[in-house]
């Protein structure tokens, strides 16, 4: 269209055409397909919730929810069966606790070292190695706990701490899981520490702080919410970890936080009971799903908490 045509044809024709020249059905179909891809994750969540909820509801028809949550006797495959879930919940928490006792100091120290002390060259080598540690399959950690960590603990066990741990113990499992979650705490914390504005460090130096004071009293507190989020993420990973507890921590329901004793974790119960030949609809089947439901709720709550902390922290510096 020429300029003179526009001038000649009046105000109605002057309105520029901005809509597409063709309806582009192909593009609309493709976008709908992409939306369908994105919907898969919603469908997956729904499927998980349904597949856990239905047998759990049936289970609570047979076993009162109070007896399940607060009972201290766990023997769903015994006759007569008992359904007090506390021993295996405490087993899971004990493992998580001991893994965190090991992983929190190591993880934070690694993060502080990488972010404040390491030269660029060291950081460029060490960070990928830590990421490789995160990629080691869990069955390898379980085997390592069983054939390396446990014998070493028994060999170097100081007598004044009481009896040494047996072949299966919460301590061996906790240490192996601790090693497994160190990279999570280290990488999430390191990200938070690198996000601390340099102005804070320079301000502290200008006031005469030493390097260690800057790291411990300025960077660490400023990055604390990120560090905490990393710890929660690691704890939720430890709670859900299966192979290590299955191989190294034992399969004995045991209501104790004593790390030298064998325990049964929730995941270990699920993995030993829900093998391919379990009969759908049996009380054992429903028990497995009720335990899994509890596990799902525990990790979900921790994840929501961690996301919330990260989000709050983001508002501060960006």
């Amino acid at each position, binding site marked *: 269209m020429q300029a003179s045509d526009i001038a000649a044809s009046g105000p109605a024709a002057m309105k520029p055409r901005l809509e*597409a020249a063709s309806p582009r059905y192909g*593009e609309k179909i493709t*976008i709908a397909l*992409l*939306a369908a*891809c*994105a*919907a*898969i*994750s919603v469908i*997956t969540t729904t*499927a*998980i919730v349904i*597949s856990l909820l239905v047998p759990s509801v049936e289970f609570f028809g047979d076993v009162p929810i109070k007896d399940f949550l607060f009972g201290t006797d766990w023997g769903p495959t015994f006759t007569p069966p008992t359904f007090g879930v506390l021993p295996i919940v405490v087993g899971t928490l004990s493992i998580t606790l001991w893994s965190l006792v090991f992983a929190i100091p*190591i993880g934070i*120290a*690694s993060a502080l*070292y990488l972010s404040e*002390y390491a030269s660029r060259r060291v950081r460029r080598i060490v960070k*990928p190695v*830590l*990421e*490789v*540690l995160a*990629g080691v*399959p*869990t*069955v*390898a*950690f*379980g*085997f*390592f706990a069983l*054939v*390396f960590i446990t014998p070493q603990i028994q060999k170097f066990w100081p007598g004044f701490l009481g009896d040494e741990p047996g072949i299966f113990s919460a301590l061996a499992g906790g240490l192996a899981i601790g*090693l497994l979650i*160190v990279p999570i705490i*280290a990488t999430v914390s390191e990200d938070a520490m690198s996000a601390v504005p340099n102005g804070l460090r320079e301000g502290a130096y200008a006031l005469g702080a*030493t*390097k*260690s004071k800057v*790291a411990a009293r300025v960077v660490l507190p400023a990055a604390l919410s990120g560090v905490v989020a990393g710890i929660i993420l690691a704890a939720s*990973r430890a709670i*859900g970890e*299966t192979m290590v507890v299955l*191989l190294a921590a034992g399969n004995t329901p045991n209501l104790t936080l004593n790390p030298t004793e064998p325990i049964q974790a929730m*995941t270990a119960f*699920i*993995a030993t009971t*829900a*093998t*391919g*030949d379990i009969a*759908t609809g049996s009380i054992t089947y429903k028990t497995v*799903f009720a335990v*899994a439901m509890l596990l*799902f709720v525990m990790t*979900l709550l921790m*994840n*929501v908490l961690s996301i919330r902390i990260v989000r709050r922290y983001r508002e501060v510096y960006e």
Partner: protein
Amino acid sequence: MSDFDPKTARAQVAIAGARGVTAGVLSDQPRKDVVRNGLFGSLLFLGIMIALAGLALLVGDNLIKGWPRLNMDLLTNGTSSLPANAGLHSAIIGTLWIMAFVILFIVPLGVGSAVFLEEFTGKESRFARAVEVNVQNLAAVPSIIYGLLGLAFIARGPLSLGFTVITASITLALLVLPVVILVSREAIRAVPPSIREGSMALGATRLQTVRRQILPAAIPGIATGIILAISRAIGETAPLIPLGAATFVTYDPSGPMSGFTAMPLVIFNWVKQPQEEFQVLAAAGIVVLLAVLIAMNSFAIWLRNRYEQRW
């Protein structure tokens, strides 16, 4: 100070004096601080060394224990109840079959989701927010729960595919899909808006912009995510246990509807055997698995660092 000549003796003395005073005031770090600084630094260094030593011990211990069985027989022998004849052959074939279908699922689904979330939804879209929250939560669901989903929904229940390669593939694909989506989104987000705007200003449609500009620019990041996801899927054992891990598959899986076995499962079964020879075999198997995974992860990390584009 036009008459100031730094070469004169007086100027030299003045400069030296000023330098001495400045250095004396500024570098006079109390001995206590020097000690404390060094101590703190070494403590942090010790922390990271413990983590790295743990990794080195894990690799070294398996290498030493598994050394007698680390030969070609390990890769060519099939499953056997006799430790002397047992090997990873069926397991490797099984893992390859499972991974082939995992890749088939996660590449289109993961990249499609990421493209949709980054390019075709607004920040305030409720659907996009729902998906985002879902992906974040799915990433944190324990892997054994995916196994139960596979048991209740895929092997039995609505899909009823049985304890087959395809069941294992779908289960593992769902497990690692959040990784692909999260990493791909990150890669797509890193492409600056000016590329999009430039493309659209030249008359490209949104889909053409995605296909010709954004995806090519984001491919290294997306590939990193996919490799990391596959390496995670190869190493996962827990979700496969409810899918009939106890079943002893002695043949080579031959297709999507065939019974399955996988490397970590076979290693897990070996670890559980009482005989000492099986422990050696398990260590050797772990070395093979570790070699594959470390190679894949290193490649992914290298890829990310190599093609990390600064716009």
